[in-house]
């Protein structure tokens, strides 16, 4: 007979570390509040009959945030056999609040007092018998990090029938239930533990005086982030180049090998060009992204990420973002998909949505490679041109953030910004390694698959047309037909030809494919652009247009709404189009040709389109109250109905 054990506790209580230790199935653990947002399950490695479920870290079961709602629904619909309530021994008072709430569920429970090693090191006495007596269940002091008492915890959990006794709140002080619960805990906590500042806490306070310093905090952060990028570009970039060359020679060898066996020409071209080279493109990005993710994992695990959110919050808020948007933005510079997933820690809905809309403006690893190739091919390898894309991304984030903020849908004030500043800890190498392992699986799985599919699809579109197999005669291919249909759309931007249009199109599927496509369809890419402004407009369009298919899918998942996804794609297309247009118009102004008049007409059309788009968004609630955000269909203030 098998039993299910659910781990429940506050964020940063070491719950996920315990889960990793119990199951050996590794997943993300973090000091960054709320990293585990999905329910994760595994099997106890010492007793396969015990299923272990890791639930999101939360402060209460009050059913307000997505996480709280998800956990409550899980506990009500499929109650586990046993709850292991993990509490942080160094922060018992607040952690026991959730325990009080759990007592209403009537499920057998064990309390695991984590960080027992920390308590011992600092000479803090824990009276677990007293704790057990107060709540009427067993309480086991454990250390997930040092693997102390964990087996004992599991043997108690496997056999316990004891349920939490609900605290008697009638006599407690306070107006609300939560105040009474805290009053109850306050009365008992001194008998359970002797409070004392731990050494880690003292260190954290000293370090925070520097890390979050009013003047030096932000410069320190910029130094840290520059170092992170420098290391990932230098180390990762060097290894990536070697890998790229290896794949290129592998393609050559395969080519020779297949030819010697008289394999048909089209199959050789499919294997060598589409499959091997595109796999090479993905794999050569991997080292760079790995180093970036390893360093980012250290920043997150150590608790520094919370400090960064703290010092940057005011600045980011002026663009309708949150201090917590910064980490998703930085992660997006590596890969937009992971960046979008990192937005889950933002509790304010409109700030989270804004982050999802704007984070794709950051040049991800794939875009960086595209810009590198462009600056090499068109601007004599100017590093300034490539680097300017970062600045363009940041400027556009700020400018479009300001614009979006004017919409009521992006200025709601729901959800408090509550950011716990956890004790700074040295991240364990083990933890960082497992975070990385997750990322590799994610990246090679999702991104690799998509590049592979796009490459094969591209190869098919290039070599087949209405007349069937048209190898070597690209003007009869489907690709040519598609590009031809699209080129008028891009004419005002300065690259109205079928080759550039097709490259942009494949870029929406995967940015890696832009250069590949352009080289494939045109022997002389320089002929596609009439001046350097139109090249730059093209680069800007690639930077700002909707990201790859993988991140569009991720955005859909995070926005949880097809309507919002549609708005996001529309917004990004308009942003990309208008910026590219502005760049190209500047170029035309410099040359003073008659295209100016034509472009002016187009600008008016675009402006009208934007206006209509704005109207469409506005319909979605006026924002004078938050009724629409709560799923009601009548505005509280204006009494107007609106479509939901």
């Amino acid at each position, binding site marked *: 007979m098998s039993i299910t054990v659910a781990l429940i506790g506050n964020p940063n209580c070491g719950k996920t570390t315990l889960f990793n230790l119990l199951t050996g199935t590794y997943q993300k653990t973090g000091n960054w509040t709320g990293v585990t947002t999905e329910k994760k399950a595994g099997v106890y490695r010492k007793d396969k009959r015990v299923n272990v479920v890791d639930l999101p870290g939360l402060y209460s079961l009050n059913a*307000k945030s997505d996480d709280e709602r998800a956990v409550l629904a899980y506990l009500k619909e499929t109650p586990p056999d046993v709850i292991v309530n993990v509490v942080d021994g160094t922060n018992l008072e607040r952690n026991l609040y959730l325990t009080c709430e759990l007592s209403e569920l009537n499920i057998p429970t064990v309390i695991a007092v984590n960080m027992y090693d920390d308590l011992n090191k600092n000479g803090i006495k824990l009276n677990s018998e007293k704790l057990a007596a107060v709540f009427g269940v067993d309480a086991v002091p454990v250390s997930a990090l040092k693997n102390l008492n964990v087996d004992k915890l599991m043997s108690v959990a496997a056999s316990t029938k004891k349920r939490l006794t609900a605290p008697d709140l009638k006599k407690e002080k306070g107006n609300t239930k939560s*105040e009474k619960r*805290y009053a109850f805990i306050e009365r008992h906590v001194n008998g359970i533990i002797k409070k004392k500042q731990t050494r880690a806490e003292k260190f954290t306070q000293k370090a925070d005086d520097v890390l979050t310093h009013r003047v030096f905090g932000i410069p320190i952060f910029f130094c840290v982030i520059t170092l992170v990028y420098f290391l990932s570009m230098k180390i990762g970039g060097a290894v990536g180049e070697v890998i790229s060359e290896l794949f290129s020679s592998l393609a050559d060898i395969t080519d020779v090998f297949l030819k010697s066996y008289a394999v048909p020409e089209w199959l050789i071209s499919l294997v060598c060009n589409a499959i091997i080279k595109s796999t090479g493109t993905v794999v050569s990005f991997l080292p760079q992204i790995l180093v970036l993710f390893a360093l980012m994992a250290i920043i997150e695990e150590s608790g520094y990420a919370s400090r960064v959110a703290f010092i940057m919050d005011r*600045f980011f808020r002026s663009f309708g973002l949150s201090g917590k948007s910064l980490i998703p933005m930085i992660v997006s510079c590596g890969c937009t998909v992971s960046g979008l997933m990192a937005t889950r820690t933002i509790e304010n809905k409109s700030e989270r949505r804004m982050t999802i809309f704007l984070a794709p403006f950051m040049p991800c690893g794939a875009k960086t490679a595209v810009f590198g190739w462009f600056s090499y091919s068109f601007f004599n390898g100017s590093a300034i041109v490539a680097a300017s894309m970062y600045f363009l991304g940041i400027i556009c984030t700020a400018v479009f953030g300001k614009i979006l903020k004017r919409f009521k849908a992006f200025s709601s004030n729901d959800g*408090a910004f*509550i*950011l716990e*500043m956890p004790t700074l800890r040295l991240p364990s190498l083990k933890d960082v390694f497992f975070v990385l392992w997750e990322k590799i699986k994610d990246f090679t799985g999702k991104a690799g698959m998509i590049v592979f599919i796009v490459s094969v699809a591209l190869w098919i579109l290039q070599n087949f047309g209405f007349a069937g197999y048209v190898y070597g005669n690209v003007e009869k291919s489907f690709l040519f037909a598609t590009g031809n249909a699209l080129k008028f759309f891009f004419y005002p931007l300065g690259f109205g030809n079928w080759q550039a249009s097709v490259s942009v199109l494949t870029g929406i599927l995967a940015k890696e494919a832009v250069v590949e496509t352009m080289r494939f369809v045109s022997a002389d890419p320089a002929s596609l652009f009439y001046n350097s402004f139109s090249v730059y407009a093209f680069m800007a369009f690639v930077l700002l247009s909707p990201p790859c298919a993988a991140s569009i899918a991720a955005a859909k998942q995070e926005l949880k709404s097809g309507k919002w996804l549609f708005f996001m794609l529309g917004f990004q297309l308009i942003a990309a189009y208008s910026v590219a247009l502005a760049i190209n118009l500047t170029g035309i102004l410099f040359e003073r040709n008659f295209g100016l008049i034509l472009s002016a007409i187009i600008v008016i059309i675009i402006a009208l389109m934007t206006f209509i788009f704005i109207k469409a968004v506005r319909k979605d609630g006026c924002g004078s109250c938050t009724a629409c955000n709560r799923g009601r269909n009548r505005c509280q203030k204006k009494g107007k109905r609106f479509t939901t």
Partner: protein
Amino acid sequence: MLLSELKVGESGRVTSINNQSEIKIRLNNIGVTEGVVVTVVRVAPFSDPVEIKLRDFYLALRKNAAQKITVEKL
């Protein structure tokens, strides 16, 4: 006085939290309740958000949330 008016290093006892706000529920749940003693530990650049210490842990709040909390200075 309001929590937002406390200077760095000063402590206060929470006397009330603005009732109509959804923020109150969240603050209550995390331990900011009437009667609890909070100490302002530090403020971010631009003086917002504010970091406070209470019940043995550290919490950052935006100024607009701190303005909803009334304290009596200790």
